[in-house]
């Protein structure tokens, strides 16, 4: 049963289906109640499931995440929304010192099955603090699962999997795709946590991306094809756990790789991918793995963001630098 819907609607469906399937799933945060969230992702949930299942809290992110942790200790499965990426930082202490570590601290006796949803990354012309790519902070923190869907089907399926996970999940929603319409077959959707997807096969080089960078990587591959270069694209979907097998199989096959991500590159997830792919595939590599990332700067003001964000041209430039002359 395929239906056209936006990513916001796909996520909304995942929340609804999870709430229907499991009474212990509760949704809360800032403006997620009657308003339905500033991106309308929680639209109608309070109306349909009642105030106890979907509700607004006082305006305090540490409070939201900390309360969610407590509710998870007491048998519920909270799904909380941070209104924008940069507004999750006040909750950092709770995330790093508790959410990530509680299961380990208690030798598994108190695991925290909870999901922190974060509208994430840029490309929407937002003012400061509304466009951060903050995945590195979470990916570096042991104990968290970190997911970033790139399309509507995965957005649905990964969120369902996240809510069912016994471990806490940081779920990064590429906000620039909230309103992109796509045909989705919810019934057939099944993304497993920890499994990357080869979204395009290619012989010459592999583009590795996740979240909002996947469509850009695909567009770049499309463009490269017209120039006679055959690029594959891997969509990580799951940043932690990382799917070494799928990624390395592709890279070994092509011998060249470019990592694409919006976040500043320094000490980032892109660094990790480049480092581990190199470690695992060194003797297959014809050229060093290149990173196409945001610059090492604060996210720029709206009129300047297009300078900052990886685009197809920048990806293709990086591909061009993969020492093809050696291949001749």
């Amino acid at each position, binding site marked *: 049963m395929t239906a056209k819907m936006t990513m916001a609607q796909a996520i909304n469906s995942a929340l609804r289906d999870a709430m229907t399937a499991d009474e212990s799933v509760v949704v809360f945060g800032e403006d997620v109640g009657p308003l339905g969230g500033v991106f309308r992702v929680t639209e109608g949930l309070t109306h349909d499931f009642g105030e106890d299942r979907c509700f607004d809290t006082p305006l305090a992110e540490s409070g939201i995440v900390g309360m969610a942790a407590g509710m998870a200790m007491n048998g519920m499965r909270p799904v909380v929304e941070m209104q924008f990426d940069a507004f999750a930082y006040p909750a950092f202490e709770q995330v790093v010192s508790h959410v990530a570590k509680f299961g380990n601290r208690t030798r598994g006796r108190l695991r925290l099955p909870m999901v922190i949803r974060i509208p994430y990354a840029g490309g929407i012309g937002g003012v400061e603090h509304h466009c951060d790519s903050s995945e590195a902070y979470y990916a570096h923190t042991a104990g968290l699962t970190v997911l970033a869907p790139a399309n509507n089907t995965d957005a649905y399926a990964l969120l369902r999997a996240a809510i069912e996970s016994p471990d806490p999940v940081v779920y990064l929603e590429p906000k620039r795709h909230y309103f992109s319409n796509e045909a989705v077959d919810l019934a057939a959707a099944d993304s497993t946590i920890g499994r990357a997807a080869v979204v395009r096969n290619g012989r010459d080089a592999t583009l590795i991306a996740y979240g909002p960078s996947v469509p850009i990587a695909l567009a770049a591959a499309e463009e490269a094809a017209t120039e006679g270069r055959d690029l594959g694209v891997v969509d990580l979907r799951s940043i932690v756990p990382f799917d070494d097998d799928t990624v390395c199989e592709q890279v070994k096959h092509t011998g060249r790789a470019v990592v694409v991500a919006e976040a500043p590159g*320094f000490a980032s997830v892109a660094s990790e991918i480049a480092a581990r792919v190199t470690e695992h595939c060194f003797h297959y590599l014809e050229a060093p793995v290149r990173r196409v990332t945001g610059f090492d700067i604060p996210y720029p*003001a709206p009129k300047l963001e297009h300078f900052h964000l990886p685009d197809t041209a920048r990806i293709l430039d990086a591909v061009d630098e993969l020492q093809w002359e050696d291949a001749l």
Partner: protein
Amino acid sequence: MSSDQRDAASATMRVLDEAGDLADGADRPDADGLLAGYRQLVHGRRLNELAGALVRQGRLAVYPSSRGQEACQVACAAALSEGDWLFPTYRDAVAIATRGVDPVEVLSMLKGDWHCGYDAARHRVAPQATPLATQLLHAVGVAHAARLKGEDTVVMALCGDGATSEGDFHEACNFAAVFAAPVVFFVQNNKYAISVPLARQSVAPSLASKAVGYGMPGVRVDGNDLAALSTVLGDAVERGRRGAGPTLVEADTYRVEAHTNADDATRYRTADEVDEWAGRDPLTRVSAYLRGVGVLDDDIEAEFTTDADRMAARVREGLGVDVAPDPGELFAHVYATPTQQLVQQRAALQAEFDVEEAR
């Protein structure tokens, strides 16, 4: 602190009632001062209207309007001396303009040019804070530094009702109280944090009552009453100036428009509620009083309006000038001197342009 003082934090101080008559037991406000304030209210209202229009015309991306809160905006800026500091939020463009910053510079942030369009250091107006309540701590720091340096600076720190729930609000109030820092915490309780009503934010008798737990005075004031606000904020500033420490002031007001133009307020509140508050307009109250005492007439009113129109025209023109963004700026300000890495990244970006141009 006596229980009287604490009860003061829940009663609402008022000078003019909604009809513009003197409230029971209130002292007569200084009419000339109030007239000057009225002029600023007219300007503030005009600025809110202009910005709204610019958004509708696509010239600004977004605008969080302070319509209905202009008395708060004007009073908090007017309470300050030149050497004082103002710490505004995204909603406080009118306060910043009242302080003397060119509205063109204030609004340029919303054009998308840069994160802050005015010279924060020169005007002693911090950049408009987006992360809620975080700027209150900076305000305490500025105030404490001033005290250590022996300066008599006072800092006016603004936030909304929603922001009082954040941990930083608590830490800022407590630090200020413990260090007796000259800060006026001015909470514009406009009843909503985006869609979330006050009842979801707090079940305390008032937001001003939070002052009790920090050991500082808390005052609740009618936020649509310019005369009352001027008195209360003036007292609080004076208190800070003479070294008596911080004050928490809660203004009872209302956000008449949606959170921003992007918000749909009909989803969470009734038109009746909005109408009721629109009837308590901060401008009409002052004009009624001033006309009653014979200080304001149609001519002066017309003069104010003309002035405001002139300001609006100038701002519209100023914002019409589009300067092409300079990509070099991305790297120029991150550090005092760009790192080697940033220099390389700038060069790489430049090279992309060079290639494009060569094409």
